[in-house]
Every structure is written in structure tokens, then in C-alpha cells.
């Protein structure tokens, strides 16, 4: 059987993704266990790549630090990579890692750069843009993509258009959504839970019209309720104005 040739950095990203898939919490890099040993070994391999392809190596460092929930080091590494040029994926992976770290405003800023229909990544990053809460921005990109005869995921496109219609009527901007989501990101980081969110648009005139951003949390329903109280307190401290058109909620994983 013929071996398939692959770039080293592709294999390292596979290992990062495999490590991420092992759990919903950030890795505790100070712990001693098989997962952290794998994470440390990966760090050595990324380090070895620095002399060969520095731009990609910094990108990998960013994603690697992101696994441990290290916001400052992840941001620094991706900024280093971006300063060295465009690896083809470094800004997209930066956006993905900002989402993984609960930095939604910052993720939206990158989505505005990488999600354009003209740039060739429109389809690949539409879901990430949607997950960053950049609904209005995504709807604009969809409109432009349609003009260019680019077709994306029909269900996702319809969801975005539906959500955008409700939020526009309510005068709810992407920036306001991001501010709300950033607060949830703060609470999730406190619990060391990697954000895993989905937007749900409810459009039933007689009952409820609104968009809900639900983050799955790996805790019991009782603990999820307590996390929602914590979120409400944090929103209050951040001066979030409550509006029926949009809210954020923590939801327990289905048992």
C-alpha cells in the first residue's frame, strides 16, 4: 500500500484536533496525565518546525496554546504568525481559536476579513462567522456570494437569513451580540469549558420571536441553572441591556 504524502504541519494540526476532541474542557497543562504528556510532546514537535516554517509554526503554537485555554499566549502566537505573512490558514485558525477561547468580538473582527465571498473561503468559514454572532455580516456576505453565483450550505444560509430578519427588526447589531457573547466567554473560561454554541432562531409570531445562543455545558441541569444565574450576574456587571430578540443560555448536555 502506498503511503500518502502529507505536510508535517498538517499532521500536527490533526494531533491538535484529536487532542481537542478528547474533552470539552481546556487541558490543564500543569497536570500529569497521558493527555498532557501528548500535549507536551506535540509542543516539542511544533518547536522543531520553527526553523523550517516559522509562520506555520507560530500558527501551530497558537492552536496548541489554545488547547490549554491560554488566551494571552494564543493571541501572541497567532499575531506573530500573521506578522510573518499569510500561511493560507493562519487568520482562519486564529478566528477559530478565538471562538474556542470565547473571544467573540475578536473573532467577529477576523471574520469580517476572511469571510468575504471574493476571498475564496466564504463557504468554509460561514458557520464560524455565524457562531461568532456576526449575523448581519454573514448575511451581507451571503448576498454578495449569491451575486457571484457561489452556493453555500442551504440550511445554514436560511438560518442566517431568518436570524438576521428578526435581529434587524429589533435593531440588534453584531457588536451588541458579540458584547453579550464575550460575557458568556468570560464565564465559560472561569469554568475552563471550551465554548460549544449553536444559534436557534424561533419564529412563531403567536408565541415567540427571537434568537437564542445556546452553549452546551458538560454539567448537570441543576449546575447549568446555577451557571445561568452566574451569567445573568456577569451580564448585569457588564451593563448588558436585555432584549427579547436575543439571549444567551447555558444548556446541559443531553444525558
Amino acid at each position, binding site marked *: 500500500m502506498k503511503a500518502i504524502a502529507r505536510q508535517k504541519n498538517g499532521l500536527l494540526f490533526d494531533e491538535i484536533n484529536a487532542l481537542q476532541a478528547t474533552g470539552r474542557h481546556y487541558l490543564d497543562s500543569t497536570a500529569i496525565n497521558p493527555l498532557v504528556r501528548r500535549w507536551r510532546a506535540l509542543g516539542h514537535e511544533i518547536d522543531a518546525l520553527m526553523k523550517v516554517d516559522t509562520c506555520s509554526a507560530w500558527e501551530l503554537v497558537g492552536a496548541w496554546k489554545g488547547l490549554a485555554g491560554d488566551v494571552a499566549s494564543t493571541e501572541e502566537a497567532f499575531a506573530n504568525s500573521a506578522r510573518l505573512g499569510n500561511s493560507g490558514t493562519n487568520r482562519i485558525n486564529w478566528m477559530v481559536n478565538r471562538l474556542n477561547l470565547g473571544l467573540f468580538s475578536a473573532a467577529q473582527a477576523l471574520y469580517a476579513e476572511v469571510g468575504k465571498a471574493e476571498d475564496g473561503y466564504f463557504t468554509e468559514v460561514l458557520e464560524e462567522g455565524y457562531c461568532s454572532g456576526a449575523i448581519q455580516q454573514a448575511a451581507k456576505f451571503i448576498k454578495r456570494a449569491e451575486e457571484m453565483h457561489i452556493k453555500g450550505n442551504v440550511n445554514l444560509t436560511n438560518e442566517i437569513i431568518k436570524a438576521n430578519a428578526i435581529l434587524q427588526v*429589533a435593531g440588534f447589531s453584531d457588536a451588541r451580540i458579540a458584547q453579550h457573547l464575550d460575557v458568556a466567554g468570560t464565564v465559560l473560561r472561569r469554568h475552563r469549558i471550551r465554548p460549544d454554541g449553536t444559534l436557534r432562531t424561533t419564529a412563531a409570531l403567536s408565541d*415567540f420571536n427571537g434568537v437564542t445562543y445556546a452553549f452546551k455545558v458538560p454539567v448537570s*441541569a441543576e449546575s447549568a441553572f446555577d451557571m445561568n*444565574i452566574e451569567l*445573568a450576574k456577569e451580564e448585569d456587571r457588564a451593563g448588558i441591556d*436585555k*432584549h*427579547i430578540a436575543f439571549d444567551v*443560555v447555558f444548556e446541559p448536555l*443531553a444525558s
Partner: protein
Amino acid sequence: MSSSPLELVDCALSLLSDTRSEPQYRTVCSRAYYGAFHAANSFHNALPAPGTVGAARGRHEQLIAQLANPTCSKRNEKYFVSQALSKILGTLIDARVRADYLIDTDIDLGMAVRSSESARVIMLKTSEFAVN
């Protein structure tokens, strides 16, 4: 004859233990929501002052808005409990709308479990804070 919110939630939990088909998952989502709605409504009615309706329309949307915008003091622990109830009721009404109106969309066991669990916790918390 009458039914209490607890009986509606118990009904959802009881149905859940024996659900095998999508119409049954839909019924669980529906009963769970209404049990939670009535429990949350009683909680809201017992607050020192009603919450703000804002732009919300209809009985269901208005309750969710009022719970999100309580007018009692923030020193009253029920203030933030009310906001947490609003958040969870929002997820339950979404499931209920999908279950009852959007019959061409999928409703799975996971959604039925989430709805009944959320409704159970709403019952638990509204009872707990009703006596405090």
C-alpha cells in the same frame, strides 16, 4: 379537575421513560414547556413587582421578557433567578415551537431529554425560591 405545573412536568418525565417515536418526543417537549411556563409564571407573579414587558408580544413572549427584566431589587436573589428562568424558558419554547408547529423538522430523543430536564430544574428552582 385541574392540573398543576408539577403534574405537567411529571407527565413529560413519565412519557420520556417510555418514548419510542418522534410524535412522543414532540409530546414530551410540549408538556415540559407548559409545565415550566406555568411554574415560571407563578414565580413571576409572586415577585414584589412585575417585570418589564418591553417590545414583547403575546403571553409567552411577554413572560420571557418580564422574567429577563425584573423590577425588584438586585439585592433580592430572585432577581437573577428570574433572569436564569427567562433564559431556560427561551430554550424550552424553541423546542416546543419546533415540536408542535414545525413537523417537517427533526425532533430527537436528545431534545426531549433536554426539555424534560430543563423543565424539571425549573420546577425545582421555582419551588426552592418560592419558600425563600
